C-alpha cells in the first residue's frame, strides 16, 4: 500500500475513535518537527489535540547554564566543542556565536569523537565538550570519558548539562493546567532505556503512552494506538516503533550512563527545578569534569520578557500564542531557545507554516 493510502486508512481509524476530547503530548523535538513538517495537526479531528513537550535538549538548557559555558568559552586557553545547535542559543546577554566572533575558540562537532580528536591535536589547550542531550546522546558522552581515561587525555573534560526524560514527564503528567490524556514517547530515548522507565505513566497515572517512530505514518499510527487504548479502557506503554525499539532497550548503552553519571536535581529552562532530572559525572571521573577543573560562575536564571518558551515547553501554550513569534523572534534573530534549535517548537512552526503559506502570526 502507498504511503498516502496507509495515511488515509489510519486517519479514518483515528476519526472513528475520536469522540470525546483527547490531548496528546509529543515529547520529543524530532516528533514536533515531523508533525509540523507533515501537517498532521491540521488533518486530525478537532477533538484530538497534539501539544509539544520539553523534548528539545537545547531548548530546555537554562540560561544560567548557558551563561556558565559562555564564561568558559571566554577563558584563555580553552577550546569549547559543541553540537551546532548550541551556537546561537542566547544566554542572558550573549551567545556562543557572538563570543566566537570576539575571538573565543568554539568548534562545532558532530560527535564526542571529534572533540577527543581536537584534544589529541591540542595538548597545550583545555578542550571542553558541552554535554547537552537526553538518554540517546548521554552514552556517547560516557564513552568519550572512557576513551579519554584510556588514552590519558588529561586536557579533555565535559560540562554535563544532560537531562533525563522520565522525571520531567512525571511532572507534566500531573500538571492540571496541561491536562494530558496520553503521550507519544521519544523513540530513540526508548531505544536506549527500553519501556520500563515509562511504565509509571500507565501504572501510577493510568494514562496510555506509545513509543513512536519519526515518519508521518509512525505518528499517525501512534495516535490511533493511543485512542484504541482509551476505547478499550486500558492504559499501557505500547511500542509502535518496533523496527528499532526493543522493550528492554539497549542495556549496554544504558549501563554506560549509570557507570559514569549520577542523578542530580536540574533546572529546566521555563520549567524550573526538577528533582533528579539531571546528571553529573561520578566523583571518580572528576579529572574529566569541567565543573571541577574550572571555577565557573553561578549566575541566576533570568526570564526574557514576553518570551513564552517556558509555557510552550510545558505544552500549556502554542508558538502561535506568543506575541514575539515571527516578529521580534525569528530563526535569524531568536529571542528564546525554542526558536533557535531546529527541533524547537517555535522554529519548527515558523519554518513549516511559512512554507505552506499558512498565516503564522
Amino acid at each position, binding site marked *: 500500500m502507498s*504511503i*498516502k493510502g496507509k495515511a488515509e486508512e489510519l486517519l479514518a481509524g483515528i476519526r472513528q475513535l475520536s469522540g470525546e476530547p483527547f490531548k496528546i503530548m509529543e515529547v*520529543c*523535538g*524530532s516528533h514536533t518537527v515531523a508533525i509540523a*513538517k*507533515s501537517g498532521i495537526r491540521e488533518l486530525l479531528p478537532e477533538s484530538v489535540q497534539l501539544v509539544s513537550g520539553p*523534548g*528539545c*535538549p*537545547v531548548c530546555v538548557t537554562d540560561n544560567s547554564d548557558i551563561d556558565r559555558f559562555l564564561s568558559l568559552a571566554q577563558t584563555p586557553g580553552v577550546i569549547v566543542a559543541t*553540537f551546532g*545547535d548550541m551556537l546561537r542559543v542566547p544566554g542572558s546577554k550573549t551567545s556562543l556565536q557572538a563570543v566566537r566572533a570576539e575571538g573565543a575558540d568554539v568548534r562545532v562537532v*558532530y*560527535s*564526542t*569523537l*571529534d572533540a577527543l580528536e581536537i584534544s589529541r591535536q591540542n595538548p597545550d589547550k583545555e578542550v571542553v565538550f558541552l554535554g*547537552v*542531550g*537526553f538518554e*540517546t*546522546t548521554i*552514552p*556517547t558522552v560516557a*564513552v568519550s570519558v*572512557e576513551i579519554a581515561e584510556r588514552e590519558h587525555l588529561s586536557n579533555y573534560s565535559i560540562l554535563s548539562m544532560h537531562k533525563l526524560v522520565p522525571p520531567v514527564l512525571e511532572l507534566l503528567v500531573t500538571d492540571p493546567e496541561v491536562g494530558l490524556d496520553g503521550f507519544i514517547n*521519544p*523513540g*530513540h*530515548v526508548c*531505544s*536506549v532505556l527500553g519501556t520500563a522507565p515509562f511504565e509509571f505513566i500507565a501504572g501510577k497515572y493510568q494514562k496510555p503512552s506509545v513509543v513512536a*517512530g*519519526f*515518519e*508521518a*505514518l509512525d505518528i499517525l499510527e501512534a495516535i490511533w494506538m493511543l485512542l484504541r487504548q482509551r476505547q478499550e479502557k486500558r492504559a499501557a506503554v505500547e511500542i509502535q516503533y*518496533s*523496527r*528499532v525499539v*526493543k522493550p528492554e532497550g*539497549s*542495556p*549496554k*548503552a544504558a549501563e*554506560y550512563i549509570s557507570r559514569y553519571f549520577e542523578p542530580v536535581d536540574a533546572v529546566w529552562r521555563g520549567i524550573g527545578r526538577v528533582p533528579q532530572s539531571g546528571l553529573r559525572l561520578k566523583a571518580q571521573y572528576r579529572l574529566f569534569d569541567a565543573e571541577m577543573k574550572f571555577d565557573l560562575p553561578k549566575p541566576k536564571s533570568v526570564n526574557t520578557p514576553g518570551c513564552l518558551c517556558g509555557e510552550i515547553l510545558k505544552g500549556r501554550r502554542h508558538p502561535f500564542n506568543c506575541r514575539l513569534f515571527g516578529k521580534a523572534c525569528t530563526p535569524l534573530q531568536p529571542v528564546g531557545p525554542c526558536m533557535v*534549535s531546529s*527541533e524547537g517548537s517555535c522554529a519548527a512552526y515558523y519554518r513549516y507554516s511559512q512554507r505552506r503559506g499558512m498565516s503564522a502570526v
Partner: protein
Amino acid sequence: MCLAIPAKVINIVEHSAEVDLMGNSRQVNIDLVADILKPGDYVLVHAGFALERLDESTAQETLALLEEVAAKGEY
C-alpha cells in the same frame, strides 16, 4: 537532537566500524553495542556511535520507508 538512522556495517577494526550510511561511508564507534558485530549487520547510528544492532528485516523496512518518502516527496 535524538535522531538516529540505520547503517550497514562494512568493516570492523577494534572499537570502530566503517558503515554505509544512506550511501555514504562513515566511521562509527561500536563500544555501546552488546552484540558482536560482523560485516553485513545493521546498526542504529547516532552522533558517530552505533547504539544497537538492528534485525536486517527491520532495518530494511526503515530504509525502504525513508527511500519511499525521499523519492515521492510525500511527507
